[in-house]
């Protein structure tokens, strides 16, 4: 049994945090000439634009509305004119285009009228969750999962522990660190609000021990407010992963295939909690975020509080520009972040960091054969056998890979980080997971076809029954004109019943169920990196 504050495995990557942690957050950088606001900055479907080209919008105005449960609203980060709604290169390794609203700031910074609740504690919790949803808040640690869904989920469970994740274990990133140092009171207030919404018994803000300033600031802010604990956890990657953090704080493990809700725990990132506080206290929607602009290629790396949609290149320029051509551009941290195809892509809700790394920082090598050194096994926080998983994936034997632990892999990269042979283990895992997903989609499709066929048979039978009923009714009518009224009524009822039966068996319902279960898997997946 591991003690509190512990989890199995893990690694100690070089922090690279000093350059950005020492400077305060740069707020209000000059307005960029154009903001690019992707309609999809969250895990669900694209939001639907509510504005037309040429329209003037105010700061904080909703310009696109969520389409479906997993989607999120988009708000104008500043006042200005909508110039276009078109496809742009997304901050995603694929570099595939997706639709975005182009907003040209007019420099007025004119706010819409904000309508915060007078006393957030006085209104029903469901409504508070609604306000969070309205504000377009998603998981800001990179999970980009709509925050309101998590709050509502939380209400359906008896949450014993709310964990506010301020561990920030990724190298280079210091956004949460600076946020906790500079805005500790807001975070404490946000924690209180979230705790209130989900009615958690206990709220813990978990911070890694390499952030003494943040710990001190939070402790000071939490003074006198009972019921909010500041937990200092050892600095070890991946402490910020929900499963590992839950284990470190509560000593419990999330059972395989379950979510943290099931054991009465909910994890929210500090930046998300801050955004929730801003929404519920000031009525401000999510229009900006703090991001670490870092890496040795950046002349003066620091944290910037920038408007969503600001181009990455613009942020690099704000930080003094590039010293050399980066070996790799990243959104997020180096352990789990995504490669950016270009700097001509906007910062979005999930951009916790924008890094321009040198060759030395990336330290990439041609892979050698595995020497069975077992470092990956010892580093894996999930207790898996990365070398066996990679072997399975390499042979396209995905079942073997799954048995060796692929199904439990959180893609944290600890194994690949320590592998002396520089084997791109995570690449194998992503490949295998992708293949398995495709395979599952294939079976789902088969299942759907089966339900459709069954539905059709049912409908045909129902129609037949209806016809027979009608026929019977007709005969009855023929037989006795006196009973005409009654027969008519019967006919109607039979037809209605048949129609209802047919409706019940039609696909939309079953598709809805399938959609639900997909959501559930996404929920489980997304949660891992909250």
């Amino acid at each position, binding site marked *: 049994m591991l003690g509190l504050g512990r*989890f199995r495995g893990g690694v100690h990557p070089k922090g690279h945090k000093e350059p950005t942690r020492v400077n305060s957050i740069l707020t209000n950088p000059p307005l960029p000439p154009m903001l690019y606001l992707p309609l999809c900055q969250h895990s669900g479907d694209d939001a639907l634009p509510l504005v037309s080209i040429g329209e003037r919008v105010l700061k904080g105005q909703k310009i696109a509305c969520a389409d479906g449960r997993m989607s999120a609203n988009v708000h104008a980060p500043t006042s200005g004119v909508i110039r276009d709604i078109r496809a742009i290169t997304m901050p995603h390794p694929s*570099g595939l285009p997706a639709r975005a609203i182009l907003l040209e700031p007019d420099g007025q910074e004119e706010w819409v009228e904000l309508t915060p609740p007078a006393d957030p504690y006085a209104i029903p919790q469901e409504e508070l969750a609604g306000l969070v949803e309205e504000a377009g808040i998603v998981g800001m640690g990179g999970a980009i999962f709509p925050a309101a869904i998590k709050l509502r989920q939380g209400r359906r469970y008896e949450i014993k522990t709310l964990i506010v994740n301020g561990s920030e274990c990724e190298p280079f990133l210091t956004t949460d660190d600076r946020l906790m140092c500079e805005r500790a009171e807001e975070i404490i207030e946000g924690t209180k609000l979230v705790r209130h919404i989900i009615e958690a018994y206990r709220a813990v803000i978990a911070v890694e021990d390499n952030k003494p300033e943040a710990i001190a600031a939070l402790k000071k802010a939490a003074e006198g407010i009972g019921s909010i604990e500041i937990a200092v956890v050892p600095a070890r990657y991946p402490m910020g992963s929900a*499963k590992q953090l839950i284990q470190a704080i509560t000593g419990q493990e999330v059972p395989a295939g379950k979510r943290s809700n*099931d054991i009465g725990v909910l994890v929210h990132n500090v930046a998300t909690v801050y955004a929730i506080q801003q929404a519920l206290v000031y009525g401000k929607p999510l229009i900006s975020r703090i991001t670490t602009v870092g890496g040795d290629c950046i002349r003066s790396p620091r944290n910037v509080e920038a408007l969503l949609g600001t181009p990455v290149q613009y942020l690099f320029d704000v930080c003094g520009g590039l010293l050399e051509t980066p070996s790799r551009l990243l959104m997020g941290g180096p352990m789990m972040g995504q490669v950016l195809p270009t700097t001509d892509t906007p910062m979005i809700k999930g951009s916790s960091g924008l890094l321009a790394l040198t060759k030395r920082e990336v330290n990439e090598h041609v892979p050698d054969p595995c020497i069975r050194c*077992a470092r990956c*096994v010892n580093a894996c926080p*999930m207790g898996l056998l990365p070398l066996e998983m990679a072997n399975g994936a390499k042979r396209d034997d995905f079942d073997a890979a799954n048995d060796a632990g692929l199904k439990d892999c959180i893609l944290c990269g600890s194994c690949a980080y320590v592998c002396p*042979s520089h084997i791109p283990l995570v*690449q194998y895992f992503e490949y295998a997971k992708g293949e398995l997903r495709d395979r599952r989609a294939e079976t789902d499709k088969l299942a759907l076809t089966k339900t459709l066929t069954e539905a059709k048979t049912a409908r045909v039978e129902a129609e037949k029954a209806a016809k027979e009923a009608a026929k019977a009714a007709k005969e009855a009518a023929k037989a006795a004109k006196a009973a005409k009224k009654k027969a008519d009524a019967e006919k109607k009822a039979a037809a209605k019943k048949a129609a209802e039966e047919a409706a019940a068996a039609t696909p939309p319902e079953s598709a809805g169920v399938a959609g639900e279960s997909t959501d559930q898997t996404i929920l489980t997946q997304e949660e891992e990196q909250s």
Partner: protein
Amino acid sequence: MNGPVRGASPHAHDPSGVSMIMLQVCLALVPVTTWAFYLFGWPAVFVWILCISAAIASEALSLWLMQQPYSRLLDGSGLLTGWLLALTLPPWSPWWVAVGGAAFAIIIGKQIYGGIGQNIFNPALLARIALLISFPVPLTTWVAPQLYPGFMESLGIVFANAPLSELGADGVTGATWLGDSKAFVRAGGDMQEYMTTSFSLSDAFFGYSRGSMGEVSALLALLGGAYLMYRRIISWHIPLSLLGTVALLAVIGHQANAAAFAPLQFHLLSGGLILGAFFYATDYVTTPSSRSGQILFGIGSGILIYSIRSWGGFPEAVAFGILMMNALTPLIDRVTRPRVYGRNRQGNAIKHVSAQRRVN
């Protein structure tokens, strides 16, 4: 600006590398080896050079045959295998023992299985045992330390098989303590008597004795092992469980029958046990990957080594013990898989009380 799109996460890596690891192990072997050169003179140097060059040459040959990139030569594993083999050989071995052994270690011991990371047995030990079985005489000819033949004379010893007696020294060759004590007890002698008359604790510890190049100095082997643990190249699990097991059995055996079973210090300090525990039993490729598996491996090797020493026919207990456990490694790996987060040992999800609120 367009960035180079490439690579899956992580986009950072710790500074380790395969060749770094191999070179660290070689570095840890330097004290033992230097001591062997000092004790046994030029012939030992020649044997060492021969083993290493033959190992690297065999590696190159295999890579050429299997059409693999020659850059693999730089991973240092060939160098290390040759070096480890040299340390198991009698310091005045003839050249063909060194060259043949190294070629066997690399080609049969490693490359036949598919190269680095694929072999089942520790290549150096496998070659050592193959040599012992094929050529028992040169492989059990142990010279006394500090004889110092001249350079030309040494060339003769290694390359021309010059008869050792020509050196004119009496008692030039003989058995190691382990072999000697065994013969002594078997001939009806009392182990305790042997200990007092023939064995010298300090000589065994500091390394003045007959033996293979690497086995003579327990102190320097320990030093190298400590360095490897300090650099986290190896963990304590295998060496300490192995040494602990042998120590425990030695104490029990000696308590039970002091006349037949050697005492603790004799077991620990002779026959290259410490060198074996830190350098041969910790070979990544041929030992278990989980911590608990490593402990099992250590205990198993310890039991085998003690048993072979006490009751077996060969004095080469360390090599045999480790090789036998190498064969069991896949099995050990299977039974000592780490428990997966959120699952029990059987691989099923752990039980929990659902926190779901009752929906009326």
